[in-house]
């Protein structure tokens, strides 16, 4: 929490909207664009009201082409602007993956700093709200395997606002994924005005000693719910919000496991190759001596995110599955 400021209770999408507004106001190099971003203010209203305020040169609609959007944004960033591009849903980042993998994080390296890409790519991600197919995807693991980019996934309105402003200030490309489930699902106090939060730091959002739950984005509230339930049974779980996936704050994770001796990693993407694997791998390398039980992953199954609404809630991890995993590591 930022001291000495007024706060209001707003939801995550409003927090994003505020951050965008402040960034546009503060830095004339900031431009905002994507599909339906301008006139309509975004399908989730993240850019609501910004085109009237800053004009259609700074906030604008693009053609329907994600590779075009990202490529265009890369060019604008190289030529001196600070673009913030929206991809309508993270599952529609896929057509842009060539631009992302081939250029986004490589341009600085290959030109030894001559050309750089201060670009933020925002996208809603994740399931839980009965959107069809790709609309519910969680492709963060792929983005985390892209060299030279940063990846942030906030879990609350306050964090979203401050981290997005940091991302826009960052000299390098940043992915900023926003859990659709949280957009209107959580309201919380958010400081007024401009503030930034540090990129690259994980946060202990609940202290405990029995085991560590590690999550990010939409899974943080699931873990908090699980921790509340466990607490009622006298089991104190520590909950860590990873927040920045790349660069990953491994020390904070290791420190927690050093204390609890047990870790459960929670993510909603398909299990195999998900970012939770990276977290588990780091713990298996740097915290092995502390581990008193296997590292259990609670994740989406190795199947497409269900296109079938009635059963999607069996795919996305919930508190029940997290608690089963907790039981597993505690009874090991």
């Amino acid at each position, binding site marked *: 929490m930022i001291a000495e400021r007024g706060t209001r209770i707003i939801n995550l999408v409003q927090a994003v909207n505020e951050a965008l507004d402040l960034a546009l106001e503060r830095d004339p190099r900031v431009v905002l664009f994507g*599909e*339906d971003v301008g*006139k*309509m*203010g975004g*399908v989730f209203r993240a850019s609501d009201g910004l085109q009237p305020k800053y004009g259609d040169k700074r906030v604008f*609609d693009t*053609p*329907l*082409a*994600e*590779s*075009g959007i990202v490529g265009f944004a890369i060019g604008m960033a190289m030529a001196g602007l600070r673009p913030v591009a929206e991809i309508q849903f993270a*599952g*529609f980042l*896929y*057509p842009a993956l060539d631009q992302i993998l081939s250029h986004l994080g490589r341009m600085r390296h290959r030109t030894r700093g001559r050309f750089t890409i201060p670009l933020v790519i925002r996208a809603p991600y994740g399931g839980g709200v*009965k*959107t*069809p*197919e*790709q*609309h519910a995807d969680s492709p963060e693991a792929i983005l985390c395997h892209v060299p030279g980019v940063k990846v942030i996934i906030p879990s609350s309105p306050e964090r979203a606002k401050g981290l997005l402003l940091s991302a826009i200030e960052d000299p390098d490309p940043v992915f900023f994924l926003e859990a659709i489930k949280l957009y209107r699902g959580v309201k919380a106090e958010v400081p007024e005005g401009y503030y930034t939060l540090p990129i690259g730091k994980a946060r202990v959002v609940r202290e405990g000693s029995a085991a560590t739950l590690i999550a990010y984005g939409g899974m943080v509230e699931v873990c908090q719910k699980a921790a509340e339930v466990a607490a009622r049974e006298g089991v104190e779980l520590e909950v860590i919000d990873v927040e920045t996936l790349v660069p990953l704050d491994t020390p904070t994770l290791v420190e927690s496991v050093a204390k609890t001796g047990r870790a459960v990693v929670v993510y909603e993407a398909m*299990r*195999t190759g998900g970012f939770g694997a990276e977290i588990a791998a780091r713990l298996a390398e740097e915290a092995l001596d502390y581990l008193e039980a296997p590292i259990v992953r609670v994740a989406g*199954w*190795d*199947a*497409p995110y*269900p*296109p*079938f*609404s*009635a*059963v*999607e809630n*069996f*795919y996305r991890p919930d508190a029940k599955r997290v608690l089963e995993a907790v039981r597993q590591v505690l009874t090991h």
Partner: protein
Amino acid sequence: MDTVRYLDDDGKPLRDIPLSEEELLAGYRALRRARHFDERALVLQRQGRLGVYPPFRGQEAAQVGVALCLEPSRDWLLPSYRETAAAITFGMPLSKLILSWRADPAGWGAPPEVNMVQFYIPIATQVPQAAGVAHALRLQGKDAVAAVFIGDGGTSEGDFHEGLNFASVFDAPLLVVVQNNGWAISVPTQKQMKVQRIALKAQGYGIPGVTVDGNDLVAVWTVARKAAARARAGEGPTLIEALTYRVAPHTSSDDPGRYRTEDEAEAWKKRDPIDRMRGCLLHLGLWDEEKERALSEELEAEFVAAVEEADKASEPRPWEIVEQVYAEMQPDQQAAWNYLHGGEA
């Protein structure tokens, strides 16, 4: 570039109509069937008995006219989410379509005798696939064509371009139908592209491009029939731009008030494809109020039966989410299946 039209805005023929009376009547019936589904589906949606639903009101002729040229067990249809009208005409059972928009597994996957791939959600990805389907049909010596649908917005995607180029290079028997309905969610066609006519894009691929009045069933049907004949003759694909308008919201969750005024939609409502086709039938003395009433009753009965049929589908079971990932279930899916089935992971 001229727009192919056969009917004026009231449905009066502007020139000789190259369709038989039976065809005209069948065409009108297909339009009405589609419209009936769309109207009733929106009601179901509001009742919470469908998921997000993308209505096609006003675009019936553009879809039906193409589907009428196709034979479901021989030809192939690759639709975007907008093409429920094409799906209906192509032979998809209404109950399946209801289940499909209910996001129920029982609706996803056409019956074996209907070669319709499931509605495509990621824009434009269907186009290269359609080129591949069409080319495979040809390589296998089948006398078949494929039809793929896409929107004006979809033409901006790379896959539209790559698919068209593949289709043209391989002379694939393919109809690429662009429904230019004026909007891609909130973005009007004029902001999507600089070119005035989407059909002009065909020139970049060395294939024929036709702009047709997409609210004129006779025109769409005739143009599509010609393109299908061309394709079957091994002469390759055709790009068909059907000029139409999305009278309804983008989907059941969209609010067009955020980006357009009602005037535009009102003007297009006067060019309603069904009214025009009815006008044509009336003009030719092929239709009357009695027939209209009988048709309405028939369609309502059909729809009610379809809903009943759909409602019979058993609730999807949790473990279905890890079924049909591979032909044979692999260890990771088996473990998940066991867990979801009540055992432990």
